[in-house]
């Protein structure tokens, strides 16, 4: 008996399996609610979802295995599922199947029954089956398969309490000594199966751990993993003659019958599934399929593209405007004190105003290192992590609408031929738009949004190119440089930015796909599920769980990096406490690093001050603007003070800024008119200032703009890339190529333009 049994079943391990679109996640969400965690299976990019619930004293641990169409061992998901079932030995395995597609799901059920695991069938989507005029004879189905069958509807919760009861019953009854004895008759293959089975039954310790009939069938199917299992679970070199004789017999069978055993096995299963379907299903009527009519439009090559464009645009607008665009709490803004009118603004002001104010009133910390560590390092860092939460929440709310409704599969169909050309997948479009495909957005939730992509190769490529899109944090930098140097060509530069970043992303994905990721692009095979009205409970649950996952898994890394960057910018402290911020920053570690890099970055036209700003940008791209402002002595003050300050600077330093006062004011006014939203007053003054600087030319501005567009994604995104892929290597690869490419392009553009002029 295993250890779990000795624990008197205080904890039960249950696994949830099923094909994609069987409604498995809805069942999982119902069972576990908020008690869910997401991790990666070791060594693969497949995400592992697990959760738990309590039933009296018992704790039931539920693992939601990846949705797969079969249980061969060709894909990562299939291997993960099979290994879990065989090696972790869950006490109950619940298979969720679609009642309206019984035959095809039975084919999958058979593969699990052959594993001889304690099975419970959850016959989901009974509502759709009823709507289509089916009635299913449950007792006959139970009798034929020899396992409990529970009719259910995950969306309404119908039958799921019964499912919980069955999980209890089956796990209590479960005894490893007497496995399920259900069998399929494979006809002409039976003698071979019996022979292999008998031979395998002699092998120690294989026979204790694995169902030998299943292994025999797998050997006939020519399954690599089955051979590997036999190799690893038999003593000595015992397995070699056995496998050789098996291979020989399979070949003999093929030459005799002219068909591969694999095909015979598949067709036997299919025929049985058809027979059982006929026995158990009664069709009363066949209603018209509205889904097909809808697909006439939504999958149409032209209308489909238009609808994808519209849906993407609406999703993008809704998600980002709800998080930080449209006013939610107008009364807070009306008070004129704090910008508390959006969820994002609320989180931001909580950490930039409320918490510091609260701390101030409770403890009177003197200005100094500790004060700065707590305020500028930790509170600002935590705030920096949490400001992502409203965006993540709303994005996943809408993503779950797209997924639950079944629309995302149509997006894939419509865009497949375009995206495939660049080594991407039809589904890649959503993360790319969310990451800033039309300027504004955020790479971090966009990387998280790739989670529903089933093709791992395309998923990794999408994750790696999403940072090339122009997220909302790059916008202030672009606005600064455009306002300073390309005011007349604003629209043109913006269009160029969008064009360049898409060209880069598609180019990079084709190259990376060929050079580093390897493998063939996955061909398009996509089930189009019936359209359904999304379930609000599931939507909210997804959004909350994704936000929580982000805070828990990525938050700590982001916080650590932010504190580290704060140290770089803040230390060493100047001896004279009255030193202004610009002088302090000029002496910081960050500035020292900036000077070290100067001999290299000079080729792209960047001096050490630009380097410091770019180092600041590792934390978040918008920091580039504020770092530059500090460096050029523009403080975050109100308008009049800033202007006075500017005047003083001008007088003191006697720089080249010689325009008449009136004209300067006009200019400031002009800037305000153009970029009231993307650039704050500090940024506008910086723009005016940059124009006046001798070493700033439109060329340098353009090169910097390109560099910022391409170089290292912010560390928050890096952390999420690491967590999402489960490998630090993909994060490092992304950092390496973005910085390399950014530098190459910057140097090329800078040097060529200089030679040409």
């Amino acid at each position: 008996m295993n250890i779990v049994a000795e624990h008197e079943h205080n904890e039960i391990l249950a696994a949830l399996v099923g094909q994609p679109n069987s409604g498995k996640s809805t069942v999982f969400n119902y069972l576990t609610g908020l008690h869910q965690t997401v991790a990666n299976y070791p060594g693969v990019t497949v995400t592992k979802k697990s959760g738990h619930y309590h039933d009296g004293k018992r704790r039931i641990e539920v693992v939601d295995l990846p949705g797969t169409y079969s249980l061969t061992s060709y894909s990562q998901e299939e291997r993960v599922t099979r290994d879990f079932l065989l090696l972790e030995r869950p006490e109950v395995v619940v298979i969720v199947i679609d009642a309206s597609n019984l035959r095809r799901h039975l084919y999958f059920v058979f593969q699990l029954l052959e594993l001889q695991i304690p099975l419970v069938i959850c016959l989901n989507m009974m509502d759709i089956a009823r709507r289509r005029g089916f009635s299913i004879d449950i007792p006959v189905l139970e009798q034929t398969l020899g396992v409990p069958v529970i009719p259910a509807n995950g969306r309404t919760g119908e039958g799921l309490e019964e499912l919980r009861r069955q999980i209890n019953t089956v796990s209590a009854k479960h005894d490893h000594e007497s496995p399920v004895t259900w069998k399929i008759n494979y006809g002409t293959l039976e003698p071979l199966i019996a022979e292999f089975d008998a031979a395998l039954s002699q092998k120690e310790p294989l026979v204790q751990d694995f169902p030998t009939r299943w292994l025999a069938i797998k050997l006939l199917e020519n399954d690599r993993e089955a051979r590997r299992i036999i190799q690893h679970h038999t003593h000595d070199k015992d397995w070699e003659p056995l496998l050789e004789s098996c291979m020989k017999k399979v070949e003999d069978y093929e030459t005799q019958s002219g068909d591969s055993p694999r095909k015979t096995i598949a067709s036997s299963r299919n025929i049985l599934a058809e027979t059982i379907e006929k026995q158990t299903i009664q069709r009363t009527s066949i209603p018209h399929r509205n889904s097909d009519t809808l697909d006439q439009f939504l999958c149409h090559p032209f209308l489909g593209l238009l609808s994808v464009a519209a849906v993407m645009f609406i999703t993008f607008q809704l998600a980002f405007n709800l998080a930080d665009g449209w006013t939610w709490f107008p009364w807070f803004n009306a008070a004129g004190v704090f910008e508390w009118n959006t969820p994002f603004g609320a989180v931001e002001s909580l950490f930039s105003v409320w918490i510091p104010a609260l701390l101030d009133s409770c403890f009177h910390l003197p200005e100094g290192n500790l004060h700065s560590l707590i305020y500028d390092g930790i509170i600002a860092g935590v705030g920096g992590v949490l400001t992502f939460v409203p965006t993540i929440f709303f994005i996943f709310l809408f993503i779950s609408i797209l997924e639950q409704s079944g629309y995302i599969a149509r997006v894939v169909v419509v865009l497949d031929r375009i995206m495939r050309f660049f080594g991407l997948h039809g589904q890649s479009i959503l993360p790319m738009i969310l990451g800033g495909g039309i300027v504004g957005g955020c790479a971090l939730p966009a990387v998280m949004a790739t989670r529903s992509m089933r093709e791992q190769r395309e998923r990794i490529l999408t994750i790696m190119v999403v940072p090339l899109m122009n997220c909302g944090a790059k916008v202030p930098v672009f606005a600064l440089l455009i306002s300073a140097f390309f005011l007349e060509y604003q629209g043109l530069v913006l269009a160029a930015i969008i064009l360049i970043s898409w060209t880069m992303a598609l180019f990079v994905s084709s190259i990376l796909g060929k050079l580093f990721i390897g493998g063939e692009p996955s061909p398009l095979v996509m089930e189009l599920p019936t359209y359904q009205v999304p379930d609000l409970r599931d939507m909210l649950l997804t959004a909350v769980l994704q936000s929580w996952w982000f805070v828990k898994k990525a938050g700590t890394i982001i916080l650590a990096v932010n504190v580290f960057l704060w140290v770089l910018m803040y230390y060493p402290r100047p001896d004279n406490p009255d030193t202004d911020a610009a002088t302090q920053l000029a002496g910081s570690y960050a500035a020292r690093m900036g000077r070290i890099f100067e001999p290299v970055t000079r080729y792209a036209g960047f001096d050490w001050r630009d380097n410091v700003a770019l180092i600041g940008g590792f934390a978040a791209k918008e920091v580039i603007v504020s770092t530059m402002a500090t460096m050029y002595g523009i403080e975050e003050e109100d308008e009049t003070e800033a202007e006075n300050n500017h005047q003083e600077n001008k007088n003191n330093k006697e720089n080249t800024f010689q325009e008449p006062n009136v004209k300067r004011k006009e200019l400031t006014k002009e800037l305000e008119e153009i970029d009231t939203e993307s650039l704050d007053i500090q940024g506008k003054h910086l723009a005016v200032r940059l124009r006046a600087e001798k070493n700033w030319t439109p060329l340098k501005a353009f090169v910097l703009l390109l560099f910022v567009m391409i170089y290292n994604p912010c560390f928050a995104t890096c952390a999420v890339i690491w967590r999402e892929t489960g490998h630090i290597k993909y994060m490092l690869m992304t950092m390496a190529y973005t910085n390399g490419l950014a530098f190459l392009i910057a140097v090329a553009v800078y040097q060529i333009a200089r030679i040409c002029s």
Partner: protein
Amino acid sequence: MIANINSPTPETVFRSEKVDYLCHFSEGQSGTIVDLVLEPELQGRLMGMGLFAGTRFRVLQGGNSSKIKSSARPMLLAIGNTRIALGQSIASKILVEK
């Protein structure tokens, strides 16, 4: 109706007069699957979706007669209650008959 001008490939002639590749079927046509000439992984996945030798299907969209002559357009199949989109690279490896 325009006749199918695509010249049959040697294999199709070899197998049977009636057998053709799925990609040569047109919108609205029904047929039966004869064979999946694909690597085991894809075969397994398609079987999991209900595509076996002998399965009846109907082409909902795409295929030979569609107005858009882009060869890369996916085909939409109805197999019982399942709807499946297949890329041309796969549709050109599935043997079917009317």
